[in-house]
């Protein structure tokens, strides 16, 4: 309830002021809608479609996001994805069990991905020395075209100067981890830091072509987090693949985990003690809601965490259909980009027509 104006304390008399605006929680939905719309704005000139190979050549930024994801689901098949999961110390039995459980669940999901290079370190095994050696070995095995993902599960601390991940023996600092990652040849890297105080690790880890997801927005959010639970769940829930391109991207997993975490606190009527953020440009602040406006999310959308389906290979005669399909996808992206400026009825009518055409082509492709 807004507080009744008072004439002031007995020491200081203040003028009452009308409280017009009670703070209201911002609708998550609105953020998502914004993201959904803004993502389309990354699309290049209407109708422009590039082949998967040209997308790899660095022109991807001119593509619509949806197309990019489709293309990378293809490129992902040609490169390996490395997953390094580290579950740190729990400190208390409850957290030991929780962290080890999440790491085990994630390991299980990852090992089900064909060709995935899965490395999981948990409990006593996850010492700095063991990890140092493992990362040294990765530098010799990982190829530049590979994707390299590190997932930290556990407690983190921040002493106002440096973030540290709590593991048996000496803790692992963000700077040390960054140093190890810098030596990994994979140009596309992802760090998912799900620990408390994770936000404090971003500045040390930040680098071009490295996406960083943190469970907290800074080092002062020190409570044990829930983000990891939902991030792990994203690998098991087909619904996390929101654009249905059969690839779970880092962006989709981030959004999934964030949304579930927010809902948890809202439902429990508890003050949220963690606010996940992400940064994928190598510069600037991490953000809660990646969008074209803040320039974040593109690299995360391109990072394929898991493929949910088989990559289709088309005969030469069907290549024309593939081109037509891409043409329609481009038109749909263009229309969506123009949504705000188009009367609703007209927008829906044109969208329906294009979607029917796209569906028909897809049907032909599958014959």
């Amino acid at each position, binding site marked *: 309830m*807004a*507080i009744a104006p008072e004439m002031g304390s007995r020491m200081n008399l203040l003028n009452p002021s*009308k409280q017009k605006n009670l703070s*209201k929680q911002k609708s998550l939905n609105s953020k998502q809608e914004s993201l959904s719309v803004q993502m389309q704005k990354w699309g290049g000139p209407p109708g422009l479609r590039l082949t998967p190979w040209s997308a790899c050549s660095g022109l991807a930024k001119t593509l619509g996001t949806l197309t990019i994801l489709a293309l990378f689901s293809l490129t992902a098949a040609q490169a390996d994805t490395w997953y390094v999961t580290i579950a740190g110390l729990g400190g208390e039995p409850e957290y030991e069990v929780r962290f080890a459980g999440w790491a085990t669940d994630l390991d299980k999901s990852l090992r089900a991905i064909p060709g995935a290079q899965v490395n999981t370190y948990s409990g006593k095994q996850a010492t700095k020395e063991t990890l140092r050696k493992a990362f040294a070995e990765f530098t010799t095995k990982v190829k530049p075209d590979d994707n390299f993902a590190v997932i930290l599960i556990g407690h983190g601390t921040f002493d106002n100067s440096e973030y540290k991940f709590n593991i048996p023996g000496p803790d692992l600092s963000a700077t040390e981890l960054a140093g190890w990652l810098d030596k990994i040849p994979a140009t596309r890297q992802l760090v998912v830091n799900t620990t408390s105080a994770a936000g404090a690790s971003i500045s040390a880890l930040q680098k071009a072509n490295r996406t960083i997801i943190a469970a907290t927005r800074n080092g002062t959010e020190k409570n044990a987090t829930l983000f990891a639970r939902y991030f792990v769940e994203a690998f098991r829930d087909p619904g996390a693949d929101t654009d249905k391109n059969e690839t779970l991207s880092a962006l989709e997993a981030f959004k999934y985990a964030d949304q579930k975490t927010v809902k948890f606190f809202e439902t429990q009527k508890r003050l949220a003690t963690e606010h996940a953020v992400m940064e994928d440009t190598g510069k600037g602040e991490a953000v809660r809601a990646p969008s074209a406006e803040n320039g974040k999310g593109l690299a995360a959308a391109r990072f394929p965490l898991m493929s949910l389906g088989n990559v289709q290979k088309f005969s030469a005669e069907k290549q024309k259909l593939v081109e037509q399909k891409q043409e329609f996808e481009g038109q749909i992206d263009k229309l969506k980009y123009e949504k705000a400026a188009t009367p609703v009825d007209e927008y829906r009518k044109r969208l329906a027509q294009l979607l029917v055409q796209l569906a028909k082509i897809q049907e032909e492709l599958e014959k």
Partner: protein
Amino acid sequence: MRFLTAALLFLSSCNYAATPPVRGPVATCEDHRKHGRREQATACYNKLVESKDAALIAEGFWGLKNYKAANDLFRKAVDAKPKDPEIRVRWGRMYLEHFQKSDAADLFAEALEINKDYAPAHLGLALVAADSFESKAVQQANEALKLDPTLVEAQELLARLALDEGNEILAGEEAARAEKLDPESLDALAIEATVFMLNDRDPAQFIDKILKINPTYGKAWSIAAHFFVINRRYEEGIKLYRKAIELDPDLLEAKSELAVNLMRLGHDVEAKKLLEECYEREYKNAATVNTLTLLDSYKNFEKYTTPATDIRLHKKESALLLLYFQPELERAIATYEKKYKMKLPGPVRLEVYPDHDDFAVRTMGLPGLGALGVTFGSVVAMDSPSGRKPGTFHWASTLWHELDHVFVLTATHHRVDRWFAEGMAMHEETANNPEWGDRFSVEGITAIRDKKLLPIATLNSGFVRPKYPAQVSVSYFQAGKICDYINERWGFDKLLEMMNGFNEKLTTEQIVEKKLGMKPEDFDKEFLAWLDKQVGKTVKNFEEWRGKLKQTVTLFKEKKYDEVIKQALAIQDLYPEYVEAGNTYEMLADSYLAKNDKESAITELNKYAKIGGRDREVLKKLGKLLEEKGNKKEAAAVYDRINYFYPMQDEDLHRKLGELWLEQNNNAGAVREFTAAVNSKPVDAAASWYNLARAQRASGNTAAAKESLVSALETAPGFRPAQKLLLELTDK
């Protein structure tokens, strides 16, 4: 009770010299004001400001409404005379007038530290307590009178407190005592006039007297208005506030109250205008400021109307809640129309607040109300399920409760005792669905055990001025049980007869005698005997149950499941309505599951659900077990239960229920649930739209299905199942 704080300033001067707080020079000013000589009063206060005594200057500024300067001067006065309790009390009275109860109470307490027998300080504490509807108001006022039998304000306050409790006879007696102390006691006369008005008698003898003393004493009408409002006679209360303002256009307190009550009845435009005037003129009490804030927030609400309903839902949840609130409100109206054999004169306005603080603004000034919902005439305001933790609030039960008030208030023209209105509403909650309503609580058990239930003749006081913290909730329970008892013994028509008794202006005692044919004390005896049969076993064995439950919880934590099963089954019947944390049903179900006995687990969880358990995770567990067993219809019913207390933030629930109903050819239900999933901010929006399209198609609404598919594919253009269905429907 806000008007008292200011009203009490208008006291008879004849007592001031003998009884501080008001000093001689101040008394002269107050006497001018009391008699409506405003110019002289202003001149008098201005003269006080020129005094050399800090306390008198403070009084002068206070009289001129310059609170800031008065505050500074009172502080100086206290510094100069730290051992003078009178200055602190006067300072406190100014705070009270300025809506700062806490600061006022501190100063009264400080005065009592200086002199524990200082009557005006006790009176100050009585006023603070009265403003919060605390029962210690009477105690403090009596203490003040004991210390100073000439303290007319305390006597006036007692009159008012008696009327707050609906004790008109005592109120009249207390007012008469005040008049003996001061024949010009305006507030005492106003109380007597109010008693007459509440009973449709001409108050002229009192009003004429008041106006002779002060021709502009609009406050007399505003005092009366307050009592009409707390008796839920809003329309009449509004008329009286208008009279108050007519007599004294500067009576901002009455304007603010008028606005609040206009808003309660849905007259927002006039309310806002009045509140803005109050605000601009520096009348900024909590009601004014918060109600203005609330009015500002109305832009965030969506309005949905039908001939019988006018529903206001917050934009952020309107699409979801409308799915459930609209049909439930209409079902409740139809049910009550049959039961009460009447039609409402107009649509019911239902306001649902996701922010409990906004809702609380709606309930301000009403004692014991506002926990979950509140009714003003045909306007119902209530919490949204999103405003409370899941499982702690049953919105549908609350809706039926409040709507029952609309019918009872309409049928009785708002002339109904609080206990009866609440009792009927409580009765209807479980009459509609035994799983709804409140469970028999520990507070109820304790009250019965300690013989704290009130006689029916005085049950109203349990709502208005509770004497112990849980008395309001216990009174709700008791009133509900009384109506259950009458319904069971004499039938619902007898309840209608009693309701009409209030309409005939009979008192509760008269109604019991005339309609039930027995003396109220005999009714009490028979009711208690009936209640004992209902819950006596629980009351009698409560301590044993509590001790053994504790042991069972320990056994459960130790995973000694066989022992848990043995002990939990042994104590379950001692308190079957206990479904809160550590209840036997959950422990038994989990123990059975640990032993892989799913059938017994289902039995226990079914009992939990049917008795009114509202932990959605527990209910979901039951739903899942039933699904696994193949009892899909029962599983759907379990999931649907959750919708009636927390349909929010759970796309998974709506999806599951939608799938089950689609499978069972309940296509309309499936459409509702998949629509709910779409409106639950789903992570997987494309799949949610696709599911909705499937249900719409099954219900024959191809056009809607196609639209939903377009929405699905807008999010995920390559979503194959949606593409296939779109082509199928397009080809048709």
